[in-house]
């Protein structure tokens, strides 16, 4: 039977690029962009995307009653968080005067400092925008993706603590930060796989066959 992938639509920006990338690798799977609780509950896999500010994203979820649905899905079907969709799975975001998030993962999302410099002494630009390398820790979602492969990032806030065991991908920008976090049934990334060409499409392809295990 064809599996269904729901991309959660909570009124934030460019969800279609996520859907288009999933469709590109779908191999018969049905991809639907939806804000309906019933569609999301019936899906075999769920993607939680997000662009813009964490406050707007969280408000968009809550307004539609989707925050409870996302919490309820954890560990029942594979869930993938993307960019701000990763950030809202943590406990707290510093952006927008502080936003309480879903708390699936512990920890707070904080801003890159403005005064950091790179190895050549040049100021690090914020947002962190462009292609950076992701160093992997063992996880089935990295299958067929080279360690250190580059993904496309665009963000000003990040999860800084990379010592924790749920961090499965690390990126360096003025110091290490979490590029990917995972727990049973959940894999979430700070970068945009839908804009990361082959490596990104491979990650979505892996998601479509992932059993949710770590």
């Amino acid at each position, binding site marked *: 039977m064809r599996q269904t992938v729901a991309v959660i639509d909570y009124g934030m920006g*460019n969800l279609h690029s996520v859907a288009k990338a999933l469709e590109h690798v779908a191999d018969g799977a049905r991809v639907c962009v939806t804000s309906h609780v019933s569609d999301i509950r019936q899906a075999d896999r769920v993607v939680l995307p997000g662009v*813009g500010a964490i406050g707007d994203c969280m408000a968009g979820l809550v307004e539609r009653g989707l925050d409870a649905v996302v919490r309820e899905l954890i560990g029942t079907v594979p869930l993938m968080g993307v960019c701000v969709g990763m950030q809202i799975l943590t406990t707290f975001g510093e952006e927008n005067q502080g936003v309480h998030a879903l708390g699936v993962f512990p920890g707070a999302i904080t801003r890159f400092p403005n005064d950091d410099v790179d190895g050549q002494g040049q100021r690090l630009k914020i947002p962190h925008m462009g292609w950076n390398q992701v160093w992997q820790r063992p996880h089935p979602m990295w299958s067929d993706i080279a360690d250190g492969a580059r993904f496309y990032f665009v963000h*000003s806030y990040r999860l800084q603590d990379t010592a924790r065991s749920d961090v499965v991908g690390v990126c360096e920008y003025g110091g290490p930060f979490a590029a990917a976090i995972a727990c049973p049934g959940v894999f979430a990334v700070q970068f945009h796989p839908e804009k990361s060409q082959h490596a990104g499409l491979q990650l979505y392809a892996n998601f479509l066959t992932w059993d949710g295990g770590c």
Partner: protein
Amino acid sequence: MGLAKRIIPCLDVDCGRVVKGVQFEEIRDAGDPVEVSRRYDAEGADEITFLDITASHENRETTYDTVSRMASEVFIPLTVGGGVRTLDNIRDLLLAGADKVSINTAAVFHPEFVKAASDRFGSQCIVVAIDAKQVAENRWEIFTHGGRKPTGIDAVEWAVRMVEFGAGEILLTSMDRDGTRDGFDLGVTRAVADAVSVPVIASGGVGQLDHLVDGVLQGHADAVLAASIFHFRQFSIAEAKAHMSAAGIEMRLSH
């Protein structure tokens, strides 16, 4: 190792076709935008910029359709600019599949528009395009209407102000160099890149691969944009990246 510098081919699109004026005059047809973007994607372009130079509003639908087709086939970031004047324009472009929208003239006449746009859609998708012309030693001013109308606004101060208003990136074009193939105006590039906290894309004047290297190493640009050297296959993007990498610049080489 860390963040790579970016190469961004720019497509000037008129009524659904890629065009490029050579020496400000004849417009040469350089193909279907979707086909051209597919080629750039295959060669390793880090992003694509689509500049809609269509003058009439009736043809905007063609633009949305073209952007949508590009976004279905090319999985790298896509910036769209040209005639962006309202929040509805931005929303329509983002819904069509653009990742970032570039605001130029409208920002000069209504700076608050940049603030409204970044508040609504997030700084990460708002690029402010600045067309600068040198008016004295170490002084550049903003020009509008394709470089014909002076505004008296200092380009560096303007860039700083646009970032305060929420611009997430600056696309800086030297009107003195655009179309000349003499290389970027490194003075204005460096002045702006060093003054703002967000990434700066250098544009205008690329005629050979060393110009791209100079834009990063001397101009301090985070990304370099070029059009004709890629459209007419003088160089491939892969060649440009290899050249920049050999000069010691961190690039995304395997893709």
